[in-house]
């Protein structure tokens, strides 16, 4: 165990897998000389060289497509999209090729690619640079959607992603890179599809993922003072989705909310809620609350941006409403 940042944890996972498997390489804009727009790949070029740490032109569609082709050619590419916002230029390759090739070719082809993409708002980057788009990838059979909140999970889930054979969309929140946490050294694999109960509680289940997990946790502390005992669950992966852990919690609390940074309408929260109603309808005393980003393009102005995003305060309000 060592206390390192989310960024360092990802960097460590990349190094370990690069060391472990010759077929692993990284490509993307600024991943080499610049060390990554968010410095996640910092220092890798010096160690692994230009063959395995590849700076690319600004050609998202083809970078991702080339990653898919390289994977079909027997390699294990990690493609970094500088941010998920630019990934929209590559979504054809992700949805029409990466997600379908294994199935559409009768299981005879595999596409073991990991597409890493930072996402999220909170830095006044405006409408085109502040999106959280996990819902698009969740609505596409064939893709795994991984979205870690803690440094330990960032490392453990990335290593798992790099060792399995399905195409993975690996979403990192830009606000988490500098967050610190205890991370096991060396071999540390976190399985897909296992939610993590970050805090046990009996009054209300707060389901979240990525950065919002921490808003949920601080809300839980605030709620404690009000005598509300909240359980906080980090999903870790959206596909596969661990509904078992969620249902267990709801059986205990009878009240649930989902906290996430995507837009409220059509977001991952809707799917999670729907599945929970289907699986635990009789255990729910009240409708599941969705605390999410307002349905607006993210504005630049600091106050407007803050008002658009979900906060610990929103979580507290929602919990008070539920209990």
């Amino acid at each position, binding site marked *: 165990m060592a206390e390192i940042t989310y960024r360092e944890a990802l960097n460590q996972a990349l190094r370990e897998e690069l060391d472990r498997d010759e077929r692993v390489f990284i490509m993307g804009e600024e991943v080499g000389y610049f060390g990554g727009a968010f410095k996640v790949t910092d220092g890798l070029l010096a160690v692994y060289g230009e063959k395995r740490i590849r700076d690319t*032109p600004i*050609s998202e*569609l*083809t970078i991702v497509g080339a990653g*898919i082709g390289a994977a079909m050619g027997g390699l294990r590419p990690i493609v970094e999209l500088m941010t998920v916002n630019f990934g929209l230029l590559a979504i054809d390759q992700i949805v029409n090729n990466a997600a379908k090739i294994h199935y559409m070719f*009768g299981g*005879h082809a595999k596409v073991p690619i990991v597409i890493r993409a930072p996402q999220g708002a909170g830095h006044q980057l405006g409408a085109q640079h502040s999106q959280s788009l996990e819902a698009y990838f969740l609505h596409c059979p064939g893709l795994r959607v991984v979205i870690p909140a803690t440094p330990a999970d960032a490392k453990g889930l990335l290593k798992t992603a790099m060792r399995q054979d399905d195409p993975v969309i690996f979403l990192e929140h830009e606000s988490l890179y500098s967050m610190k946490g205890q991370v096991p050294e060396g071999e540390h694999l976190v399985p897909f599809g296992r939610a993590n109960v970050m805090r046990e509680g009996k009054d209300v289940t707060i389901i979240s993922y990525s950065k919002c997990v921490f808003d949920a946790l601080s809300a839980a502390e605030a709620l404690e003072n009000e005598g509300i005992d909240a359980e906080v669950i980090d999903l870790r992966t959206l596909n596969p989705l661990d509904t078992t852990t969620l249902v267990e919690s709801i059986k205990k609390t009878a009240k649930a909310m989902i906290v996430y940074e995507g837009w409220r309408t059509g977001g991952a929260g809707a799917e999670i809620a729907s599945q929970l109603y289907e699986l635990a309808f009789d255990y729910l005393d009240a409708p599941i609350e969705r605390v999410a980003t307002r349905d607006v393009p993210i504005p630049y102005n600091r106050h407007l941006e803050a008002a658009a995003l979900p906060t610990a305060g929103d979580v507290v309000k929602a919990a008070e409403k539920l209990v």
Partner: protein
Amino acid sequence: MALERDKHTAERSLLSLGEVELLELYHRMALIRRFEDKVAEMYTRGKITGFCHLYAGEEAIAVGAIYAIHEKDYVISTYREHGHCLAKGVSPRAVMAELFGKATGVSRGRGGSMHLFDASLRFMGGYAIVGGGLPLATGLGLSIVYKEEADVVLCFFGDGALPQGAFHESLNLASLWKLPVVFICENNFYGMGTMVQNAICQEELYRFAEPYKMPGVRVDGMDVLEVYSAVVEAVARAREGDGPSLIEAVTYRYRGHSMSDPGEYRSKREERIWQERDPIKRLRKRMLSDGRATEARFKEIDAEVAEIVDDAVKFADESAEPPLDELTRNVYVE
């Protein structure tokens, strides 16, 4: 000029290839033609469904190009890929079975006409998004260089793919990284009903190669030897590590865009003109005229391919449908 050079090399390869090879080329083209005619028949009889794009008329390109590479080299294509798939050596039975949607098909009946695939023969698939295969070809090229192998990738696409961003991005990346990819544009003058001059500002498609610093040549796509020798050159270059090339093969599709397109936008006259340049008849005439083969030999081959295709149909017809539990298999790797 580009044309000239290839005419020249075409002559060379005509000399360099002996009867055996030439007859093999004939055999492959005849097989594809026969196969496609039978597919059309089976489609009208309802044995084959969905979108079905035939290759009749363009055989010289797939056959000439793929004859210039080894089994270990990669081929990637579009939804009009029956010809490339057969030319790469994939079993006509498994291809026909796929079109029939049977469990014995190359893609277990899940892909259909537009999505043939055979990893063992490195036929890397047919893709139905125009331009969608070029980035994959670039990535396959990267995997070759990465593994320090000497294979090459032949990437086939139509004139309609030229205006796609993927064309530009892929040529740039392949050139920038000197990847062993031969981009082969099958210019049959139409993208569905749209004539090439209404889709792209530059009708001499091979000229797009220049800014990317790669060779660009236009060849007669109705002449299997001209295609062959142009690809031989491009492949040699690619294996040397000198990077990609763009080959524009001028051709014509005899039928509508797909089985559901009567092709009313084309004149009978235009079609006749091209039929007169038929690549199969042409090679046959050529070999007969310089006494490299007899009419009898060609008849034999025609009979052979007819048999192969009939057998493929029989096989496809008698094969079982995939069981329904196949529906949810292979969505994720098991």
